[in-house]
């Protein structure tokens, strides 16, 4: 479980997040949604400690993460995996070396054991015969999948995904969404996904937090999101032409097709 309490964050005196409090539950795909520039990425990066917060608390289970020093944070960070918007694979390393990297740094396994784990992770994300390729030789979808493989190589308890579908075609985006959902269930991880893609929201969202202008405006489930009376949230949810038409005709998207 990750608990954020009264989090405030500003850049050069300009508030970006104001009094955000939310609890992210284990074994579930938690989504942070909102418009571009609403503060989603800053919230995610604050939770993982890439941004130092101005005030508030970030708890990982019973540990107050934001008060820990760099070395103490390392222990919790070994429990984290993160999928970045641009994949953030190391350019100078091959696919195999990228996935092996956390194992090289933090385990004393033999090379054979490490390679077994690398191949297991790559197979899990459906990447085959690409061990010796460099990131520049991969497609956008493949990069994301390799990044997921790297993120799960140490069996993390927490998975963070920043805009996992950005730059992907709709079918590949669905594949990535499915993969995140499956891995979350399989490893019983606390997963937090940043997105503004409503397809992802309806596909994998179990707990959804809506951020607007740095404030938490709404929190609920994907079924509740369609019946919300929050005007800003409705503007965001029904901005899509098809969803807007469905709303006008007082219909709702087919739940059976969106539930996983």
């Amino acid at each position, binding site marked *: 479980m990750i608990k954020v309490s009264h989090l405030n964050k500003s850049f050069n005196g300009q508030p970006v997040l104001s009094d955000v409090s939310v609890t992210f539950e284990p074994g579930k795909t938690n989504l942070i949604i909102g418009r571009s520039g609403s503060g989603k990425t800053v919230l995610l990066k604050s939770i993982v400690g890439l941004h130092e917060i101005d005030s508030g608390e970030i708890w990982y289970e019973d540990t107050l993460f934001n008060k820990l020093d760099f070395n103490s944070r390392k222990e919790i960070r070994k429990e*984290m995996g993160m999928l970045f918007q641009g994949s*953030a694979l190391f350019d100078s390393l091959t696919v195999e070396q990228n996935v092996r990297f956390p194992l090289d*740094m933090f385990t004393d396994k033999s090379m054979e054991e490490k390679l077994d784990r690398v191949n297991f992770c790559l197979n899990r994300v459906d990447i085959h015969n690409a061990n010796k390729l460099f990131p520049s030789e991969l497609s956008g979808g493949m990069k994301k999948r390799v990044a997921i493989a790297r993120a799960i190589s140490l069996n993390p308890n927490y998975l963070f995904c920043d805009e996992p579908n950005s730059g992907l075609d709709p079918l590949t985006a669905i594949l990535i969404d499915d993969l995140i959902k499956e891995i979350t269930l399989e490893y019983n991880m606390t997963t937090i996904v940043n997105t503004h893609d409503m397809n992802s929201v309806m596909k994998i969202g179990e707990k959804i937090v809506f951020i607007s202008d740095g404030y938490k405006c709404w929190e609920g489930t994907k079924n509740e999101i369609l019946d919300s009376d929050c005007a800003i949230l409705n503007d965001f949810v029904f901005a899509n032409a098809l969803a807007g038409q469905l709303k006008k005709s007082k219909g709702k998207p087919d739940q059976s097709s969106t539930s996983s």
Partner: protein
Amino acid sequence: MFRFLTQLGNYVILLKKVFSKPEKAHVYYKQTLHELVYLGFNSVGIITIISFFMGAVITLQTAYNTENPIYPTYLIGLGCRDSIILEFSSSVAALILAGKVGSNIASELGTMRVTEQIDALEIMGVNSASYLILPKIIATLLFNPFLTLISIIVGIMGGWMAGTLSGVITSEDFIYGIQYAFIPYYITYSLIKTLFFAFIITTVSSYHGYNVEGGSLEVGQASTKAVVYSSVLILLFNVILTQLLLS
């Protein structure tokens, strides 16, 4: 002044992070070997070419400016030797390396920063500053003295070839000149300077690359800043070290 002090403070903080205990020694060892090839061995070519031609030019310039029967011709060899050992192979070569290696380091780290690769390291719990910068510092401190020695040898060879082929000095006189009143400490002085300059080039360039904020434009600016600041600091420390080591 405030900005300068802030930058200096951030530079010191970065160095503290860089020199903290490494996570896995064998990973750092491999990374250092990679940097030895990437930053050191790959610079041999440019240092060789420039040293050869600079040695040649120094010899010809010395010859044309000391065209006087009072001066013995072997002084051309002596002038070439001392110019190369005392200044060219340490200071001027360091300025060239600040351009090549410095911009390389700054753009590599800057690109890693803007593409979130450094963030990815931090998320894993890796001390990114130490993992990325320490092997570069070790590699340049180990390899740059060899570059200086190569530069000295090739520079003097260039001077000898230019002098003898153009006929301004005989081979015997040149060889006598480079042996005449030789002070071995000059080599030590040159190597000590090289170590300081290697540290300046690597750390200053790393500082600018590691702290890039923005996109490709800022990476380019960081690369330029890395070269400019490294070069200025090399020139400043050249004066200080010369005073300290030769006075």
